C-alpha cells in the first residue's frame, strides 16, 4: 500500500440484539479504501453489505446496536466519536447513496430543500447561497435546467434523475468518501450506464474514494480497482479486480463468476449452479460458512472455520483449500472473450 | 299543614325583601310551547303562569278566587256566570285588557282544553260590555268554577289579536298580563323573563296563586338542564339558585351542602294505570290481585327513596282539599297479602299471558315503579315484562290498547276529582276506564247543588274507585326542589310561585 488509506475498517462487527439472541450481521470485517480508489463489495443478498456501509456512518440506533472493532478515518476512530462529532462527519466527510432512489428522498420536500438543507448545515451558508450551490451540484450531475428542477418533488422525477439528485445530495459537501450502496440496482440498463459513468467522472474531478456495493459482477469489473467478496457477514476474499476475475481462489467467488450468463462470447448450454441456499448462521457457527454449498468441502471445512489468509500480495482469501483450487480449479476457470 | 315548607330555619328571621337581581333556575325539561291553553305539560305551566293570569285562580287551600275578574256571579240555575273584569289591567304590549280579549282567550282555551270540553258542556262566552263577560252553560256544573281556575292547561288571558294569528301549534307571541314578561325564549337553552313594570295586580295579601304579586326580581332565567347530575352539581356550586327535579337520593347530599336547602312541594298523586280495554287486566279480579299483592311502602320507597317524599293515603284528593277528601275504600289500600292475591289470580281468567308494563327511563320514578310492578306480578305468578321506550314513544304506544297492560304515572294535583282524566270513560285516557257507575257518580257530583250535597257521592266514588280499580292510587308525593339559601320567599302551589321571591345579595 503506497498511500495512507482514506478509511480503514478493522474487525468491524455489528451486533443487533433481538429478543431471542444477538445477530452478528457483520462479523469481523476488515478492509481499507485509499483516496481516489473505488472498492467494490459484492456478495449475495443479506450477506451484510449494507450493514457494513451503514455501520461506517453509524446510522443504526445506538441504544440497541453494538459496534465492535475500529473504523479509522483521518486518524480517528469513528466509533469512538461523540454523537455530535459524528454528525459533522456524516454528509460532510463521508456520504452515502442508497439503492432505491425513490424511497431515499423525502417525498414531501422539494429536492432543492433537501440538498440545501445539508449545505446549510455543514457549510454554514445562507438559504439562497445554499440553493445556488444546489443548482451547481445538479448541473454537475448532468441534470438539465437545474433551477427549475430545484422546485420539483421527488415523485416528479424519473428514477435516473432521482438517483442523480441523490448523488448531488451526497456530493453537496464535497465528501472525501462516497459510499454507494447498490446505486443502480433499481435502474434500467441505459440509465445505469449513465449513472456509473457519472460516478466515474466525479471520482476524478472531486478526488474522492468510493465504496461501491453491488451484487452485479459486471459493474464491479467496470468500476472498481479492488473487490471485497462477502458471504454471511464475513469477508471471504479480497483482491484487485483483475486478479479476482482471473484467479479467484474462493469456491464461492468462483461459482459466482461461473453462474452468470455471459453477454459476450459463446453461449453455453448450461450455467454453473451453486447448489443449495444460504444456510442459517447457527448451522455453520463452527465451520466454514460456505461449506454446506461448497463442492470442495472436506471434513476440516465442516469442523473449523478458516481464517482470512494473505494468499499473495493484496489477495486475501478465507478458505482451507484455496491452494488446491488455485492449482487446478483456477485453471479450469477460463472465460473466453471475444472482443466486441 | 301548609302546602310547602322549607326545611331550613330561614323563615324565623323575616327581613324586608330586596328588589332586583336575577334568579337562575335549573329546570329539567324545555317546554314544548309557552301557550298555556294547549298543554298539560308542567314545563309550560311553570313558566307561563308568570306571564299570564286567569279570570279565576286557586288560593293555597285550593279554593277558587277571582284574579283578573274583580268579582263573578253564578246564576241561580248555575248556567250563567258573569265576570266583572278589573279595569286598568294592561298587557305586556301596553294594550289594556278588555272583554273581547277575555272572550277570545276563553274560546280558544275551550277549544283545546279537554277539561273544559268535558265539564263545561256547551259553554259559550260573550262580551257584555268592555269590562263584563258572560259564560253560559247547557247544564249547571258544580265544578265549573274549578275548571275555570284550572292550573294546566290554564285559561290565561291574552290579547285578541295575538289569538287571531295563532296556528295549530298555539300562539306565536306570548303576551299576558302577569308580573313577568317574556324577554327571550331560546329553545332548549333558557326562557328569560323580565319584570313587567306596568304590572297592575291585586292588592290583597298573597295567598296561593292569588293576591299580591311583588315581582322583586328583575330577571328570571329558566335554564334547561336535562341531566340530573348536572343540575345537582350546579346547585351545589351556586351556578343555579333553584334546581327542580332533584333525584330523591340526592336529598341528603343537598342538605349536607352549605348554602343549599331542600324544598318539598306537593307533587300530586302517583298511580299505576291499568289497561281495562284489552289484555289480562281487563279482568277486574286480576287488577285486584295485583293491588292486594302490592306492598305500597316498598313500591314508593323504590320510586321516592324514603318516606319523606311520599305520603300513604288512599283518597283521590289531598288531605288539604277538604272539600273532596274521603278515605272510603281504604280497606283495599295497601293490603299486602300475597296469599290472598294468589287466590284472586286463581279466580281470575288469567292463563299465563305476558303482562306488558310500559315505561320510560326519562322519568326515573315511573321506571322504578314499573320495575317494582314486574317483581310483584312475578311473585303472584303473573308473567310480566318491561317495555322501555323514550317518552314520546310511550305516549304514542299507550294510545293503542294492544300495546300495554300497565304503566305507572303521576298526576299533578287537581282542584277537583273531575279533572283527573282516568276516571271518566269519555276522557278516553289510555287505560280506558269504562265503568258506568263511576261515570254516573261523576255526573251526579257535577249536578249537585253544593259541596255538602256532593260529599256522600264523593265517598261512593272513592269506594267505587277502589273496587273497580281503574288505577291504583299509591299515595301523594313530593317534588324535591333544591333552593340556595339566598333565595327568599320561594313557594309552590301546583308548581312554583316565583313572584314573591327575592334574592339576598
Amino acid at each position, binding site marked *: 500500500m503506497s498511500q495512507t488509506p482514506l478509511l480503514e475498517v478493522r474487525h468491524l462487527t455489528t451486533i443487533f440484539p433481538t429478543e431471542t439472541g444477538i445477530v452478528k450481521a457483520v462479523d469481523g470485517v476488515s478492509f481499507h479504501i485509499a483516496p481516489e480508489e473505488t472498492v467494490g463489495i459484492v456478495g449475495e443478498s443479506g450477506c451484510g453489505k449494507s450493514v457494513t456501509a451503514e455501520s461506517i456512518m453509524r446510522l443504526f440506533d445506538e441504544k440497541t446496536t453494538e459496534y465492535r472493532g475500529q473504523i479509522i478515518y483521518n486518524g480517528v476512530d469513528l466509533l469512538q466519536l461523540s454523537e455530535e462529532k459524528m454528525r459533522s462527519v456524516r454528509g460532510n466527510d463521508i456520504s452515502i447513496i442508497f439503492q432505491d432512489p425513490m424511497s431515499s428522498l423525502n417525498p414531501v420536500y422539494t429536492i432543492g430543500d433537501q440538498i440545501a438543507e445539508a449545505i446549510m448545515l455543514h457549510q454554514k451558508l445562507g438559504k439562497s447561497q445554499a440553493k445556488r450551490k444546489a443548482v451547481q451540484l445538479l448541473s454537475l450531475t448532468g441534470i438539465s435546467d437545474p433551477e427549475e428542477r430545484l422546485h420539483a418533488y421527488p415523485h416528479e422525477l424519473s428514477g435516473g*434523475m432521482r438517483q442523480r439528485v441523490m448523488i448531488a445530495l451526497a456530493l453537496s459537501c464535497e465528501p472525501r468518501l462516497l459510499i454507494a450502496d447498490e446505486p443502480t440496482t433499481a435502474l*434500467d440498463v441505459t440509465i445505469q450506464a449513465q449513472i456509473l459513468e457519472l460516478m466515474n467522472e466525479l471520482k476524478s474531478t472531486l478526488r474522492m474514494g468510493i465504496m461501491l456495493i453491488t451484487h452485479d*459482477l459486471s459493474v464491479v*469489473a*467496470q468500476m472498481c480497482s479492488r473487490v471485497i467478496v462477502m458471504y454471511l457477514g464475513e469477508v471471504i476474499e479480497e483482491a484487485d479486480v483483475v486478479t479476482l476475475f482471473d484467479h479467484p481462489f474462493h469456491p464461492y467467488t468462483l*461459482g*459466482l463468476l461461473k453462474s452468470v*450468463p455471459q453477454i459476450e462470447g459463446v453461449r453455453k448450454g448450461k450455467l454453473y449452479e451453486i447448489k443449495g*441456499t444460504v444456510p442459517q448462521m447457527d448451522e455453520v457457527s463452527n465451520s466454514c460458512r460456505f461449506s454446506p454449498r461448497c463442492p470442495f468441502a472436506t471434513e476440516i471445512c465442516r469442523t473449523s472455520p478458516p481464517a482470512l489468509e494473505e494468499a499473495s500480495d493484496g489477495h486475501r482469501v478465507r478458505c482451507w483449500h484455496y491452494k488446491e483450487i488455485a492449482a487446478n480449479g483456477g485453471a479450469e476457470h477460463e472465460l473466453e472473450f471475444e472482443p466486441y | 299543614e301548609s302546602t310547602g315548607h322549607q326545611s331550613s330555619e330561614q323563615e324565623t328571621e323575616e327581613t324586608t325583601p330586596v328588589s332586583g337581581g336575577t334568579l337562575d333556575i335549573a329546570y329539567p325539561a324545555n317546554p314544548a310551547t309557552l301557550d298555556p291553553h294547549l298543554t298539560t305539560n308542567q314545563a309550560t305551566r311553570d313558566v307561563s303562569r308568570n306571564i299570564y293570569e286567569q279570570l279565576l285562580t286557586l288560593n293555597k287551600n285550593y279554593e277558587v278566587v277571582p284574579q283578573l275578574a274583580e268579582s263573578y256571579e253564578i246564576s241561580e240555575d248555575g248556567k250563567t256566570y258573569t265576570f266583572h273584569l278589573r279595569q286598568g289591567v294592561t298587557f305586556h304590549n301596553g294594550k289594556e285588557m278588555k272583554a273581547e280579549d277575555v272572550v277570545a282567550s276563553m274560546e280558544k282555551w275551550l277549544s283545546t282544553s279537554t277539561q273544559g270540553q268535558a265539564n263545561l258542556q256547551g259553554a259559550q262566552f260573550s262580551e257584555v260590555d268592555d269590562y263584563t263577560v258572560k259564560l253560559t252553560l247547557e247544564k249547571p256544573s258544580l265544578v265549573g268554577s274549578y275548571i275555570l281556575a284550572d292550573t294546566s292547561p290554564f285559561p290565561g288571558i291574552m290579547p285578541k289579536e295575538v289569538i287571531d294569528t295563532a296556528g295549530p301549534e298555539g300562539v306565536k307571541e306570548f303576551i299576558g298580563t302577569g308580573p313577568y314578561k317574556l324577554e327571550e325564549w331560546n329553545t332548549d337553552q333558557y326562557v328569560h323573563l323580565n319584570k313587567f313594570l306596568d304590572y297592575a295586580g291585586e292588592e290583597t295579601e298573597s295567598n296561593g296563586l292569588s293576591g299580591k304579586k311583588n315581582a322583586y326580581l328583575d330577571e328570571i332565567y329558566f335554564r334547561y338542564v336535562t341531566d340530573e347530575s348536572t343540575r345537582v352539581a350546579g346547585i351545589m356550586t351556586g351556578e343555579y339558585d333553584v334546581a327542580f327535579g332533584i333525584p330523591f337520593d340526592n336529598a341528603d347530599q343537598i342538605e349536607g351542602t352549605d348554602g343549599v336547602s331542600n324544598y318539598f312541594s306537593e307533587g300530586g298523586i302517583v298511580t299505576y294505570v291499568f289497561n281495562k280495554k284489552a289484555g289480562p287486566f281487563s279482568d277486574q279480579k286480576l287488577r285486584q290481585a295485583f293491588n292486594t299483592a302490592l306492598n305500597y311502602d316498598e313500591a314508593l320507597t323504590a320510586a321516592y327513596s324514603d318516606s319523606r317524599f311520599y305520603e300513604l293515603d288512599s283518597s283521590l284528593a289531598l288531605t288539604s282539599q277538604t272539600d273532596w277528601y274521603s278515605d272510603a275504600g281504604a280497606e283495599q289500600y295497601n293490603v299486602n297479602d300475597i296469599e290472598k292475591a294468589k287466590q284472586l289470580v286463581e279466580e281470575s281468567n288469567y292463563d299465563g299471558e305476558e303482562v306488558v308494563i310500559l315505561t320510560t327511563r326519562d322519568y326515573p320514578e315511573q321506571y322504578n315503579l314499573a320495575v317494582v310492578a314486574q317483581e310483584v306480578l312475578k311473585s303472584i305468578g303473573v308473567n310480566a315484562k318491561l317495555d322501555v321506550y323514550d317518552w314520546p314513544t310511550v305516549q304514542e304506544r299507550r294510545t293503542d290498547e294492544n300495546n300495554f297492560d300497565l304503566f305507572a304515572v303521576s298526576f299533578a294535583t287537581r282542584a277537583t276529582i273531575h279533572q283527573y282524566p282516568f276516571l271518566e270513560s269519555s276522557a278516553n285516557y289510555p287505560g280506558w276506564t269504562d265503568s258506568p257507575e263511576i261515570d254516573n257518580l261523576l255526573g251526579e257530583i257535577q249536578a249537585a247543588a253544593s259541596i255538602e250535597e256532593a260529599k256522600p257521592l264523593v265517598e261512593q266514588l272513592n269506594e267505587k274507585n277502589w273496587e273497580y280499580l281503574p288505577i291504583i292510587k299509591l299515595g301523594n308525593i313530593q317534588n324535591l326542589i333544591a333552593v340556595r339559601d339566598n333565595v327568599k320567599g320561594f313557594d309552590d302551589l301546583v308548581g312554583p310561585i316565583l313572584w314573591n321571591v327575592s334574592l339576598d345579595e
Partner: protein
Amino acid sequence: MNSNLSHTEEPLLRIEHLTKHFVSRSGSILRKNHVKAVEDVSFSIYKGETYGLVGESGSGKSTTGRTLLRLAEPTSGKAYFEDRDIFSLPSKALKALRKDMQMIFQDPHSSLDPKKRVGYSIAEPMMIHGQGTKKERQERVFELLERVGFTAQHANRFPYEFSGGQRQRIGIAKALALQPKLIVCDEPVSALDVSIQSQILNLLIELQSEYRLSYLFIAHDLSVVRHIADRIGVMYLGHLVEQAPTDKLFTHPLHPYTQFLLSAVPAPHPKLKKERIILQGDIPSPLHPPSGCVFHTRCPYAMEVCKQVRPVSLEISSGHSVQCHLYNDQAEGKDF
C-alpha cells in the same frame, strides 16, 4: 435452445398488430387519457422455442404478456394460439385455452397465496379445470414437486417457509400442472440472487427440452435473455423496434436503441473496458409518446423524417426486422 429451428411448421402463437391502450382517469372524469402501453406489435412463437422480450421498464413487455393471456383486454389486434383466435374466444373455450398457456411471475413473494399450503397452490389449477380425482391430483403434485427439486413432504408447507428461489420453483411447478404448451415467463429471475438465478434458468431450459415447451421470456437483463432465448424482440415505448435471432441481434444490432442497450451493459471482465456510448435522457411518458419514430427524442441519428413518419417494420435479413428510417434503403435493396 440455440437450436436452429427451421420455421417450416405453423407457429404455436401468432400475434398480429397487438395494441393495448389503458384508460387512465388522471385529471378528471371528463377527459380520458390513454396510456399507449403496446402499439402494433406482431411476432410469432414456434413450438419448443423461446422468444425473448427485452426493453426498458415501462416499455410494455408485461402488458404484452398479460394481454395474450387475456388478463387485460386488447384494444385491437389479433392473436392466434394454434388456430384459436384468443381475443374472441367465448369464456368456456377461453378456459380450455388457459390449460395450454400458463404464466410465471417475477415476484416470488406475492405469486403464491401466503395462506395456502404449496401443495394446494400447485393442485389448484387442476381443481379449477376439474382434472383428476383428489388422489390423482395429489400424485401429480408430488410428481411436479420432485420435478422441480423438492420432495413430497414439501407439499404441506406454507410459502413463507420457502426462500425466493424455492418459491419460484414452486411457481414453475404450478405452471406445469396443466401440461401447458406455452409459458409466459415475466421476469422470472429478476428478483433472485445471481447464484440462485442460474438454478432457475437451468431448470427452465431442462423443462423445455423435456416437454417441448415454448416460452415467451420477458426480461430486462440482456445477458439472461441472450442465454435462454432463440429469438429476441426489443421493445421501446410500446413498439417492437427490432426482432432477430439471438446471435444476430447481439452481433449485428440494427436499431440505434438496440445498439445503445447492448453498449450499456457493462462488460463482464475488468480487462474489457469497452468504449461505451451512453444514451442520454429518459424514456418518454407513454401518455404522450413522441410523434413519428418514438425513439427520435433520444436518437443521435434522428433525421427530419423520424419526427414525422412512423417507421414500418423492415425485414433486413431472414428473421431480422427493424423499425427504423435508417434502413429504408437497405430494406428495398434487401442486401444486408
